[in-house]
């Protein structure tokens, strides 16, 4: 079975630009969460969506937004990119809100 898939795998942007990252959950999984992992640190929670509704939001500025589609895939949008947004962005899916989360391999975002 396919795991969590994320696209693109790598992305280079410049400051002030906007970016959209995409995530397809494991088939049958209805919950999707987004995490930011800065080099050398543990992942930090950004958002969780379940049944297309936002269920949780981490301590990130309003420049970060996300949505979940009827097929349970998800997009993470980041506006007005800053150098500090350079990180690995991870998507995790779970069957529902109370089951273990399984991660994709992430999108490596570099801001120049």
């Amino acid at each position, binding site marked *: 079975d396919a795991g969590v898939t994320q696209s693109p795998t790598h992305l280079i942007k410049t400051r002030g630009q906007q970016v959209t990252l995409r995530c397809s959950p494991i088939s049958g999984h209805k919950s999707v969460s987004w995490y930011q992992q800065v080099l050398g640190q*543990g992942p930090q929670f950004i958002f969780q969506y379940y049944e297309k509704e936002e269920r*949780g939001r981490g301590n990130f500025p309003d420049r970060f937004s996300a949505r979940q589609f009827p097929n349970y895939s998800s997009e993470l949008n980041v506006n007005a990119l800053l150098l500090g947004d350079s990180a690995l962005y991870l998507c995790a899916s779970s069957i529902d809100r109370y089951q*273990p989360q399984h991660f994709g391999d992430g999108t490596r975002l570099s801001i120049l």
Partner: protein
Amino acid sequence: QQQVKQSPQSLIVQKGGISIINCAYENTAFDYFPWYQQFPGKGPALLIAIRPDVSEKKEGRFTISFNKSAKQFSLHIMDSQPGDSATYFCALQVLFGNEKLTFGTGTRLTIIP
């Protein structure tokens, strides 16, 4: 404020030895304690997890020991192998509350021949 403290930051163990990684937390509301393994260029992979109603869980060479009163839990890797060389993260979750995972800072484990 860091909600979980993970140690050591890095660990070198000889092949066949026991690798031990520790985590301590403050908030007693957490009720799900997974460990994730991450290889370079990959996302974290769920390794093993425990609920606070048991003190130990074993899956193959991997064991979680949980001390609820001390608010500590640890990962033991028995008969450590070079393929176990990776970064390990403990995590915490309030299973029926805010569903986010709160991660430790990670331990880089290196198994030497």
